[in-house]
């Protein structure tokens, strides 16, 4: 019987190729002749991103025009990558005379990767985001927030790359990773009167300007190798679960304000970035069409401001108290039908209870969400996403669309709004409700 099975292979030659005679008119010589992996590749984009306030059209938030260039050099075991951008934003004229904000040139990332079979090393200025959650990652502590443009979307912030050394070691099924940051980088203060200046900082600056208080210069841990930060992550995949233990030893990204009184009786506040440690656990698991994600973090002995309106508030102290902070995130995302993507995530922050009441809310919690789908043969992605604090700390919502034209052009219009009490985390930006339009040409 085998004879009959193999008979056809003798009868019909392999030269019969149905695609050989077809007029494909698709693959041209230039496409075929281009190398796929190059020793040196250059790329980037030109972008016009314009954010206009809904409530005050005459004062746009940003009219940023950006040229972004990136360069990839090398192959195999040693590689280099660098990216830089030049911004021109005429909207900055509305709130500052600083020409550095009008024209802004920045080396974004520049690092060297040494890639061996079981050990990898990366040195340079780099972005390194840790976490399994979406937008809310309690152990994502390496990169500081972008103080000029802190909102990436209604449910995620934007970060800045920093100088670091990164070692990755593959030990069987376990990946061990260490990060050393020789010079700590913290969240810089937003510039005075900038659209994203927090309400609390604006008030302090006003009081300092009127002479009511003294706002001392920030005390940043900015000595090279004297105040290094470091972080470790041990991760593995076990029965379909991504599991990771994390440790961070460094400085808070946001300052606490130490209080003291000057001889003339005025209160002086000194922003200081304090040293702390954080311990965390992350997991993620895919289930058919869904993925669940979770993160836990403990940050012992963080400093918090005492509520000055409470009777226990003592004027002879520095106005701060040490408490533990517990953070948790759990979320699920799932694709329904063909491309309908739904992402829902719950988060909570709990500060350890104690004798002195705190200026900050002891418990905060909320949800992040996204619903999006694809249309027009996948050229258009559109949806709704945001963050809602169920602990009355405000809401940010965004209706977004991204339309691709060919391989190079993208148009992304959207509407983002902030709501909540004036002193709340998101409600304070109520005046920044905006429509935006981003036009990008990638090359």
């Amino acid at each position, binding site marked *: *019987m085998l004879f*009959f*099975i193999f*008979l*056809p*292979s003798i009868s*019909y030659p*392999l030269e*019969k*190729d*149905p*695609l*050989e005679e*077809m007029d*494909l*008119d*698709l*693959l041209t010589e230039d*496409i*075929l002749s*281009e190398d*796929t992996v190059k020793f040196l590749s250059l*790329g*980037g*984009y030109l972008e016009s991103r314009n954010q206009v306030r809904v409530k005050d059209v005459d004062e746009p938030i940003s009219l940023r025009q950006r040229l972004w260039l990136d360069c990839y050099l090398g192959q195999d075991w040693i590689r280099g990558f660098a990216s830089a951008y030049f911004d021109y934003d005429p909207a900055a004229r509305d709130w500052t005379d600083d020409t550095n904000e009008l024209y802004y040139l920045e080396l974004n990332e520049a690092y060297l990767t040494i*890639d061996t*079979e*079981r050990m*990898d090393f*990366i040195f340079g200025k*780099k*972005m*390194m985001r840790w976490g*399994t959650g979406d937008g809310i990652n309690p152990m994502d502590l390496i990169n500081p927030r972008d103080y000029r443009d802190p909102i990436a979307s209604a449910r995620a912030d934007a970060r800045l790359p920093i100088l670091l050394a990164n070692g*990755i070691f*593959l030990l069987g099924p376990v990946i061990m990773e260490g990060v050393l940051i020789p010079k700590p980088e913290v969240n810089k203060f937003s510039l005075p009167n900038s659209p994203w200046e927090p309400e609390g900082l604006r008030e302090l600056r006003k009081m300092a300007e009127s002479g009511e208080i003294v706002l001392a210069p920030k005390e940043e841990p900015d000595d090279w190798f004297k105040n290094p930060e470091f972080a470790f992550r041990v*991760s593995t995949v076990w029965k*379909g679960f*991504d599991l990771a233990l994390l440790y961070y030893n460094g400085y808070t990204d946001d300052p606490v304000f130490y209080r003291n009184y000057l001889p003339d009786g005025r209160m002086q506040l000194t922003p200081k970035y304090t040293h702390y440690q954080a311990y965390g656990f992350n997991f*993620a698991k*895919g*289930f*058919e*069409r*869904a*993925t669940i*994600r979770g993160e836990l973090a403990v940050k012992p002995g963080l400093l918090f401001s005492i509520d000055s309106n409470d009777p226990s508030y003592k004027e002879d102290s520095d106005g701060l108290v040490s408490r533990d902070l517990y953070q948790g995130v759990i979320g699920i995302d799932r*694709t329904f039908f*063909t*491309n309908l*993507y739904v992402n829902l995530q719950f988060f909570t922050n709990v500060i350890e209870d104690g004798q002195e009441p705190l200026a900050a809310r002891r418990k905060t919690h909320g949800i992040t969400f996204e619903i999006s789908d*694809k249309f027009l*043969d*996948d*050229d258009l992605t559109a949806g709704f996403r945001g963050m809602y604090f169920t602990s009355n700390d405000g809401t940010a919502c965004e209706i977004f669309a991204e339309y*691709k034209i*060919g*391989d190079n052009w*993208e148009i992304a219009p959207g509407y983002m709004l902030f709501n909540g009490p004036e002193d709340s985390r998101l409600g304070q930006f109520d005046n920044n409700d905006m429509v935006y339009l981003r036009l990008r040409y*990638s090359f």
Partner: protein
Amino acid sequence: MKKIPIFLLVLMSVFAVSLPIDAGQLNGRDIAIKMDAVDTSLDGKRTAIMVINRKGQKLVRKMERYNKKYGPDERSLIQFIEPPDVRGIMYLTWSYEDIERDDDMWVFLPAESLVRRISGGGKKGSFMRSDFANEDIEKREVEDDEYRLLRSEDFSGVDCYMVERVSKKQKDTNYSKRVVWVRKDIWLPMKVEYYNKRGKHFKTAIYGGFKEIKGIWTLTKIMTETPRIGSKTLMQYDNVGYNIGLSDALFEQSNLKR
């Protein structure tokens, strides 16, 4: 054991040749097993160039693909090179023969230096805005489908088996069935007709560029056409290599970096 008379053997042979389905011992599943056994390599790499023609608009995608077998299971890594907005994005997949076990999948987003676990929820969606669905790109295990051998038929002058494949997990697929023309000589597909959930034929893939590389028959071109939306996609594989000794470390999360 009784001997079969020679005249009976000759008669059987004549009938075997003239039956609608020759080699009557084979069923659809047997053919799927033979197709699955074509690639005997332990690992491999290839460059894929995909050109999409949508109503006159041409889109180009380039990617590198590496794979390594771990017994019946397989790990693969795809790195996108073009177009510019996805350059450097990587997908790592650990797929398992056991259809009850979900694949482990991760994506690397270079702008954030972030490795993120994803699920197979987008399998029904289009692969990079092409005529291929994500489920068309991934390797199908023999156990994923039910089979029916329809008949033998010539396609482009080549004798083929026509096999109907119906996914066992209907909720995870766009297709009510696929009809596959399988070359009888090298057990590779020549044509696949895709039928939507209403049973209507809506998409066709034609395979070509058959080459023997390191003793393994390999198809290097796939043309998929969806007439309803006036779109066709050509996928061409270049720089195909087998048994090149890829390291296990290539298929770990730690390798997802720029």
